[in-house]
């Protein structure tokens, strides 16, 4: 549901000769052919880049797999968690002495999708200015996650420093302070600045311009509930639960929560795409039912009703 809005759906048996034929008909009209099979699967189906190029000489053929189409892990299965673990990202979130934890946002998967969108758009641009005619994109989730280690990798390359949870403890940029109501807050400020802010906010007598230590701050925050702190300090943010995040005025005002009338009735809510180009009214279409558009699309390919019935009868489409 969440990942298929604004798409059409066709069901097709890619192992059957007829299914391959229909798939190639589809490809012949496509700008982009995208798959997320493990390396080699499309080739074994005789539907790899070289096969598709025969029918679509200008295709941008993009594959997104966990590890890409070569390398020692090419046969290994992978998911978001595997990629977060291998990339080093997970090792940075562990609490000292506790098992590592993953980013709750499946950033390995989602960033992989975003990198692929960038690759496809770049290839289309190169095609439109004539610097390539067709192209195969071999995208890997692990590559994408490694790329995101960006300047942490840069630091490591400079001086060998490895981010480790033991080095944590900078309240300005990571530690969440617990409040008396067992909610957590984070603060935008460096240590000294924060110490002074907190001291000012809680001081009854003369303001002392010395910072609280991190330990004193932790005790201070813990002495009162989060709703005491939130209005007091502009730089304090509640660590939102998801339901709170999705009802934040800023999030709603920006139109990030969208409502879609589902094919089967009922209104569904989703989070939307953060990119809005002025002058364009982006579509907000229901996620399709499986195979909902099979007939329509076959017709667009010039396949008539009796032929469609035959294909369905043979289980090539459903």
């Amino acid at each position, binding site marked *: 549901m*969440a990942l298929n809005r604004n798409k059409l759906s066709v069901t097709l048996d890619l192992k059957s000769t007829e299914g391959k034929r229909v798939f190639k008909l589809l490809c012949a009209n496509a700008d982009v052919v995208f798959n997320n099979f493990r390396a080699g699967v499309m080739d074994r189906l005789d539907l790899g880049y070289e096969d598709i190029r025969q029918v679509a000489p200008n295709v941008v053929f993009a594959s997104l797999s966990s590890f890409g189409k070569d390398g*020692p892990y090419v046969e*290994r*299965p*992978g998911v978001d*968690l595997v990629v977060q*673990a*291998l990339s*080093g990202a*997970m*090792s*940075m*979130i562990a609490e000292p002495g506790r*098992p590592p*934890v*993953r*980013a*709750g946002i*499946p*950033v390995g998967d989602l960033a992989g999708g*975003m990198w692929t969108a*960038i690759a496809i758009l*770049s290839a*289309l641009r190169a095609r439109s200015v004539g*610097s*390539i005619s067709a*192209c*195969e*994109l071999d*995208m*890997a989730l692990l590559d994408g996650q*490694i790329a*995101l280690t960006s*300047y*942490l990798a*840069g630091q*490591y*390359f*400079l001086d060998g420093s*490895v981010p480790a949870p033991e080095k944590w403890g900078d309240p300005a*940029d990571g530690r*969440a302070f617990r409040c008396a109501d067992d909610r957590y*807050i*984070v603060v*935008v400020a460096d240590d000294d600045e924060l110490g002074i802010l907190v001291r000012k906010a809680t001081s009854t007598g003369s303001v002392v311009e010395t910072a609280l230590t991190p330990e004193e701050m932790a005790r201070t925050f813990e002495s009162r509930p989060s709703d005491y702190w939130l209005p007091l300090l502009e730089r304090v*943010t*509640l*660590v939102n639960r*998801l*339901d*709170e995040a*999705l009802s934040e005025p*800023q*999030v709603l005002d920006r139109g990030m929560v969208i409502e879609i009338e589902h094919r089967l009735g009922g209104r569904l*809510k*989703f*989070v939307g795409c*953060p*990119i809005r180009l002025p*002058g364009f009214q982006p579509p907000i279409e229901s996620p399709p039912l499986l195979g909902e558009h099979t007939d329509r699309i076959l017709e667009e390919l010039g396949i008539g009703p009796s032929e469609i019935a035959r294909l369905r009868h043979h289980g090539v489409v459903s």
Partner: protein
Amino acid sequence: VTRSGALNGLLVLEIATTTAASYCSLILADLGARVIRIEHGAAPAAGDSYSSAEARYLTLGRNKESFQVNLRSAEGRRTLSRLVTASDAVVCDLSMSERSDIGLSADEVSELNPSLIFLNLTPFGQSGPWIDRPASEAMLQALSGGMSMTGDPGGPPRRAWLPIAELCGGLWGTIAILAALRAREASISEGCDIDLSLLDGQVAMIPYFSAYYFLDGVVPGPQGSGGHSPTYGAFRCSDDRYVIIAVIDQAPWTRLCHALSSSSLLADPRFATPSDRHEHGQELRDIIERVFESLPVAEWEKRLQAADLAFARVNRLDEALDDPQVAHRSMRKHLPSGHEYVRTPITLPGLTGEGQAPPEIGEHTDALLESLGVGKEERSRLRAAGVI
């Protein structure tokens, strides 16, 4: 600088200091666009985290040129506007009022260059109640709900240590610019002023948990090392290293039991199906934890690989960067200067250029002015007047 690449021929200005915006234009530069960083702040002082020798600058500065100009002077602003006129895109992290201050309000920009793609990449965007709120990476992760889903179950929330709100904001920004460019090249739009918010970008990265929440009101807590199943997460090995496994369905579960040499697990009715295993999650975890603690991580890697399971050692960053797959994919690159970096993970066959060193701050000021027709004498005058 000679360039090849998918975005060859595009000129992009970066008027920004944030990671998100610099990362966005880095991706464009890696893909072949010519990117000019506009340095307009005060010169960095010794010990500032922002200097041309610091890791973040080095990492985010490769393949870019640097142009230093004083935008408090009218002449400096005029020079910038000439660059804007010649550009295809601008990546900017300033507020609307800061943009006006440097002569680049939306109206001024569309007058200077109607086909310009101007990307505003700011923490909260250019609308809504929080436009002017100060922000940080931790704050964006906290507000989006992502932080509440990260950490030990029952424990305090943790942020993802990678700055994913900023970095993924850079990815969204790149996608926005490329989409706008495509619309422009297909002549379905002219230039545009894009308002992109890092918080929006982060919320958009919670697609299915938010769908579950909207459907049935379930609010996810910290996901620990996995979250989907008792056999989806990290396990400690005898050498105090961790390995993750990602096993949910029946076929890999059977293979896991064999890899753990545990026929009793396979026969145990408490763990017969995915929902049984979920129901008896703690009991199952306790058993499997003991098994994993009996052997070192390298041995488990062998066994899990032989069983064709989704697994991984929880690498430290140094190990990750030395990982054979990472090496094989040439994710580590060297600049001619000798600096090492991780590359943008996009290879367009036949269109990949070599990395160029990050510039010294203002390194290209003279060459760029020269190309704008500003002669040597005039440049000396501008420099003496503190404009550049």
